[in-house]
């Protein structure tokens, strides 16, 4: 199921599929956010913005409008 990183709930994991063309795309890529990278949303600031994500063991905080540029794929839950 494809979504924006900003829409992923706390504690959930998602895989980056692409980043929208923008002035900060390069910076996000340099932080290791490339297609195929699995990230976990850890927690959000009190007003829901910014969010903190885990990228390979380090915690990165992104403003919601920054996170909404990152398109991700959520692993579909197996329905038994």
């Amino acid at each position, binding site marked *: 199921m494809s979504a924006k990183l900003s829409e992923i709930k706390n504690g959930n994991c998602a895989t980056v599929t692409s980043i929208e063309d923008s002035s*900060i795309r390069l910076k996000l890529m*340099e932080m*290791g956010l*490339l297609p195929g990278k699995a990230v976990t949303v850890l927690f959000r*600031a009190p007003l829901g913005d910014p969010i903190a994500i885990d990228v390979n063991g380090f*915690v*990165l*905080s*992104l403003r919601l409008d920054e996170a909404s540029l990152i398109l991700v794929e959520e692993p579909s839950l197996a329905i038994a």
Partner: protein
Amino acid sequence: MKIALLGNPNTGKSSVFNLITGLRQQVGNFPGVTVEKKTGTLQIDGNTHTLIDFPGTYSLYPRSKDEQVVYSVLSNEDAEDYPDVVVVVVDQSNLERNLFLFSQIYDLGLPTILVLNMTDLAQRNGLSVDADKLKTFFPAAHIVSTNARVGMGKERLMTSIADMAQAAPERRTPIPLCPIDDVTCQEQEAASRYTFIHQVIDSSVLRIDKEKKAAVSSLDRLFVHPVFGYIIFAAILFVVFQFIFAFAVIPMDLIDTGFAEFAGWLSLSMPKGVFSDLICQGIIPGIGGVLVFVPQIALLFFFISILEETGYLSRVVFIMDRLMRPLGLNGKSVVPLMSSVACAIPGVMATRTIADWKERMITILVAPLMSCSARIPVYTLLIALVIPKTRILGVFNLQGLVLFGLYTLGLVAALLVAALLKFILKSRDKGFLMLELPSFKSPRWGNVGITVWEKVKVFILDAGKVILAISILLWALATYGPSESMKKNIAKAKKESKELHLSKEQAQQHVASAKMESSYIGQLGHFIEPAIQPLGYDWKIGISLITSFAAREVFVGSLSTIYAVNETDDVNKRLIDKMRAEKRSDGTKVYTLAAGASLMVFYVFAMQCMATLAVVKRETNSWKWPLIQIGFMGALAYFGAMITFHILS
């Protein structure tokens, strides 16, 4: 040999720097920009080498103006700071992202030392790095592992630097960087670089604990909690301010009285004359006026650097960012603004961590609007003078409420001006946060101490010059005047004292008052009287406004001189009595409620602090911003005071 020290933020780069240079450090700026450049020296085999600490970055391609220094120095062999050897510090527990910058630097072809730092953290995270395997990917690099926080690995690193100094490896053919404005090229480079890094990681990082899942630490649960997060932050601020107000006063008083006594002693032992006056009344009090800020600066940076070292500060940024953004500020503006409640000087100096130029400028410009501790003596004097000691609704003390109102007025003004500046200041880049939240660590006291020492040194050496110059100028203006009228006034005051049978002390005060009146500053006070009349002030207040440009609390001392109040015992009470009795030529009171309140508002807004001005000049590297600051704060003060006066009278 010139050695460049590079690395990502939060890799312990400054610990490595402190480890191998100790206190042999200097702080300056990179040529032409206001980016802090720390240089240190180290001695190896009798040779002195220079270590240059570059700002922490994630990539050679800059994401802010400040980071541009790294690219512009390393891409230009003729640059003043172009290194012979590069030392790159990486966090082993986070090798993937750290190798990104390292591989970029490695590709420049310079002799390179890779410092694998934070061995302990990697172990805690269940990782182990195979340095031999890593070296097969970067054959020309020396690899050293350290744990700089506990001082481990110093010898290994020094040996490696010594080897480089003796027989530096040949420079390899560099792989050229992308042009600084070619983003497509840089994005392609980033993608292919990470593909390569994944191969490196797969072969050289051993994951002992394969299924270690990302988890939220319990501390983070608390610190970013919608209720407790803010309560904890408020509690920490409360404790910090308690400490500052309780303990900074002691050394500040010592400096104050120490310098006054020294000047008094010296003036007695020196031959009388202009030279003695210049030293005892101009220069020594001027130096005292610089040093008196040191306790507050030192204490604030002591606390700020502890909070920073532990990783807590980035959580504050995280929970405050959303609240500050509508005002054109950043989560990182919170600490500078809060510090300004004690003193704007450390507040302005603490804005260095704000990477975005526009957000940093707004923070610097509005920080002095926060009511600092130097306003307290002015506020308390004026409140005691014109606000009655009554209770509102039976519980609230009116005087306390007014004091609280003045602090609130300053805070609201700071936030509103920030919101306004957001639209006025133009910036090419869109501000972004993208902040790393480092893991929690206990602070290293050595690093804390060095930070405090550096901030104090920068303040004394750089801002001190300007402060000293202005205070000597102000002293000269208050001491000298057109000689004819000065002589006449002093003679008249002496005659009056005799006629009134004043005691020797009272006579001295009477003469001092007359002298001040006829000095250049006194004349200036008369000259500006028409301009300050609409605010409800007379020329005597005008004199105090001018002299207190040195520092706000000087207002009280100046009025004491003008009203000839003995400074030794219970100044405030006697000064207040004199001020209450002060009448205009038409017989009405000078210090009415309207005039008092107008003065309070004036001091909330006006940039009456040459030390802050000097620091803003230093931090922005130009006189443009401090002048703009005087201008807009002066306008706010003038019109704010005028409106207050007219509403209340």
